[in-house]
């Protein structure tokens, strides 16, 4: 008999990290040992996270598939379910079902340089790919990361940003919106698209991965065009509202594509072939 696709796996919250005001990372461990041992996913996939009594929310898996034994999600307190999840403490139980959706084609990117461009809370989907690439570092040429947030306080994964900054094999650039800097801020000041233009990365043999709020993406694409990035070498993720995550509830589609099945990862070339319903 088939499994019930709506039944979540109970998971224990092993660790809570307050990343920024209203943003938390939860490290989750499957309670069922068999599931914990066999669970697999790939960079870019997402899941449905349950706060029992409140409902489910969709987040990407923010940890890397190369780090075994747990999964992590990073989320912003936005509404009903995320507020309930933010109240949970270490040791408590929540639910997870997944992994769902397609993946970043890391295999196809072997031998290329990677340029990550992230804004705000959109670093989580990218963090998964970044760690995946760093843990298999010899597969790729240069790795550059441009990450921007509203203010210094809003930067997430501060600890990891420091780690990436110190690595000689990563080129990290952080920026905050004008007015968001603190007296001791050593990074850039300016919006992501402008800083990207100044950064002037090469498009040669390079894949750009762009995640962020729609307005950031809107102004980043033309800059990438100018730098010579082809639509098939630019990747992003869509965040259409979801319920089932498995192509049944009917709400996440963009034209004939279900973001939960055919996405959430799309190349810009694929997006251009779809109606603008996202």
């Amino acid at each position, binding site marked *: *008999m*088939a*499994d*019930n*696709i*709506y*039944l*979540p796996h*109970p998971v224990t919250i092993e660790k809570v990290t307050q990343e920024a005001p209203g943003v938390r990372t939860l490290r989750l461990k499957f309670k069922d040992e068999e599931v914990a041992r066999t669970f697999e996913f790939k960079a870019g996939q997402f899941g449905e996270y*349950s706060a*029992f*009594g*409140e*409902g*489910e929310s969709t987040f990407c898996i923010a940890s890397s598939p190369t780090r075994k034994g747990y999964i992590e999600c990073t989320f912003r307190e*936005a*509404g009903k379910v*995320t507020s309930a999840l933010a109240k*949970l*403490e270490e*040791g*408590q*139980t*929540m*639910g997870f079902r997944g992994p769902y959706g397609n993946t970043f084609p890391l295999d196809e990117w072997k031998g290329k340089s990677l340029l990550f461009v992230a804004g705000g809370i959109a670093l989580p989907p990218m963090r998964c790919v970044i760690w995946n690439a760093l843990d298999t570092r010899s597969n790729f040429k240069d790795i550059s990361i441009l990450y921007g947030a509203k203010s210094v306080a809003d930067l997430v994964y501060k600890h990891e940003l420091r780690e990436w900054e110190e690595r000689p094999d990563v080129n990290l650039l952080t920026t905050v919106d004008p007015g968001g800097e603190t007296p001791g801020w050593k990074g850039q000041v300016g919006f992501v698209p402008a800083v990207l233009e100044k950064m002037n990365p090469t498009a040669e043999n390079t894949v750009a991965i762009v995640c962020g709020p*729609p307005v950031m993406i809107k102004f980043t694409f033309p800059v990438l065009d100018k730098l010579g990035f082809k639509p098939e070498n630019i990747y992003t993720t869509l*965040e*259409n*509202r979801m*319920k*089932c995550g*498995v*192509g*049944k*509830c*009917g*709400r*996440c*589609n*963009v*034209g*004939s594509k279900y973001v939960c*099945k055919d996405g959430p990862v799309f190349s810009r070339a694929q997006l251009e072939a779809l*109606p603008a*319903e*996202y």
Partner: protein
Amino acid sequence: MEQKYIPKASLKAWLGKVRDDGRRLYAPVTENGKTSFRRVKSADEISMEHVQTAQSAKGVAFPRTERLFSYVRQPDGDVTLQDYDPSAIPDTVVFGLRPCDAAALKPLSGIFGWDTEDKPFSERMRRVVFVGVSCSRCDAFCFCTSVGGHPGSAEGSDILLTVVGDGEGYLAEIVTDRGRALVEKGGDLFESATGISKEDYLAEVPVRFSVEEVQRKMAGAFEGDIWKSQSARCLGCGACAFVCPACACFDIQENARGSGAGDRIRCWDSCGFSLFTLHTSGHNPRSTQSQRWRQRLLHKFCYMPQRLSVRGCTGCGRCSRACPVDMNLAEHLGEFEHL
């Protein structure tokens, strides 16, 4: 296909035998002038005077609300889950659904069965036998023949009955093994049927448009103005989706019972609702009613044929009958043909 004949007078006895082993019987019942599928104890309660029931029979396989699992939260923060229990689903016979409702089981099965199996749906379907009844009458809203259907189509039914003669009996076409088992329960009540042609007793449903042409034009009209003009008066009430035998969109909600226990449930939803695709941020990919109307039509007539090889509409006409502002689907589809 094997055919039998059952006199109208024997129907009650047969349906009584069908219920013998505890099976539930659902059939059209008229209450306060409205005909809907209800659980019945006797064939006397059944009414077959209608062209079409107000609600379709889809709720038997896809109930309006359904528990997906239950949870109990312990005081220490631990949670125990109770899985969906298919053994609680009753064996059921649905009597009297029209061919357009039976045909809608295919798009429903397409959505719930593609890629991964939806257990609540498939377990219910496993336990239902569908006894269809052909249409001897139609109304101005019916358009089954325009979307590949037929007032005497047996598709989706396990048994298809057609009222024959002067209404004194039914021709029974046995479509599936499950249908055969149900006929065998009737024993001698079923007689041999020779020389009866159901075609003589069916409604004549005019073909209102070429669906291939409509689909072709529609696929190319995404950026067109037709969606706006057609949906200008749509209220976004969702009635069309709630009466549709082929609509499957649903919401997942929490039914918290207090004291830490509750159910995760799913309930019918509609792509016509303004909240359907609304992000928590306030952004909405389908923020206007015309975008939502476009989604309704393109999903049924382009995306589903493309992805699932089946249309999401069987021409039952319910959406047009139910619409408070007289949106007429057959007319609107016809407009695409002349784009």
